[in-house]
């Protein structure tokens, strides 16, 4: 299977474009994520809680800096790493699209995509946040 690995930016490139982030940490994180996604056939979801801590432990970093690095990497490689909002309820698992997010913000509710008659109220409490890695496959 052809794998879309995350390209390794040059250290000075990271430091120039992403002030305040350790380039060593960013590079180890990319290496680590590449080693995972090359073995997978589906995207990797990193939920903020508890996955950030799990992956941070694997590379010996603090979860805070893993979050910051993933956040910034998502701006470099938006097709490979993306911060996403997920609805995971009643056996449904899907990434919210722009219209869903608008509904979430304005009315704090979501429609069940399979049966729009079902409406989830107070939906802000129901969604999960995650980074999805290895999208483009």
């Amino acid at each position, binding site marked *: 299977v052809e794998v879309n690995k995350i390209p390794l930016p040059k250290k000075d490139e990271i430091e120039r474009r992403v*002030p*305040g982030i350790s380039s060593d940490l960013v590079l180890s994180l990319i290496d680590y994520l590449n080693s995972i996604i090359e073995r997978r056939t589906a995207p990797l979801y990193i939920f903020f809680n508890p996955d950030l801590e799990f992956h941070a432990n694997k590379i010996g970093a603090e979860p805070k800096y893993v*979050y910051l690095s993933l956040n910034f990497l998502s701006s470099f490689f938006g097709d490979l790493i993306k911060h996403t909002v997920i609805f*995971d309820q009643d056996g449904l698992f899907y990434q919210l699209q722009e219209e869903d997010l608008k509904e979430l913000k304005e009315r704090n509710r979501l429609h069940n995509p399979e049966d729009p008659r079902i409406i989830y109220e107070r939906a802000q*409490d129901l969604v999960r946040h995650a980074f999805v890695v290895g999208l483009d496959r």
Partner: protein
Amino acid sequence: VKPDDLAYLNRIGIQIDTSILYGSSLEELVEYTRNKLRSVISEIERNAKEFRLLGEDGLSSLIATALNNTMVLVAQREENSRGHVDLTITAPVYSSEDKYRYLGEAKVWSTKQYCIDGFEQLMGYITGRQKNAFTIIYFRILECDERFKSYLEELLQQKGGKKIKLENRYGLTRHTHISTAEVEIDHFAAHAPKN
């Protein structure tokens, strides 16, 4: 019960800015960015002496770092396909890059014309698909407000366009881009005298 992801971020030391929410419109993102830029510029003005050695590049990096700390915006100093642009601001979590891409050109005041040329450069970088862009002028000299006003007047005279707003060290103008799109340009003045 779902674990609260945002509360978890708070616990590990990431303060999520809740003044803007997922699903915000592009207009709200532009307004949010404007307000953040103004607050970073005020901070630079308050601490001007500490930053007295910084030039255009240093000041723009400082602004990029401060914007990145919002956890909403990602500000980069980079080259785009049309050449060098001082600051590119995106909001990756909130909007795709092709929809929200706010480009800015920064200049240290030397002459009115130098800054007008900076505006011209900025208009060359943007494609017209983005309806907003901005300029920042760093005034390292004592006179700021009058020169800034006179720059805006001269700019409109030379390049055409319309003044939408003029406030203390801030102006908003509207222009017709070469693509025929109407674009709005924010102009920020940062008064950070060397002495």
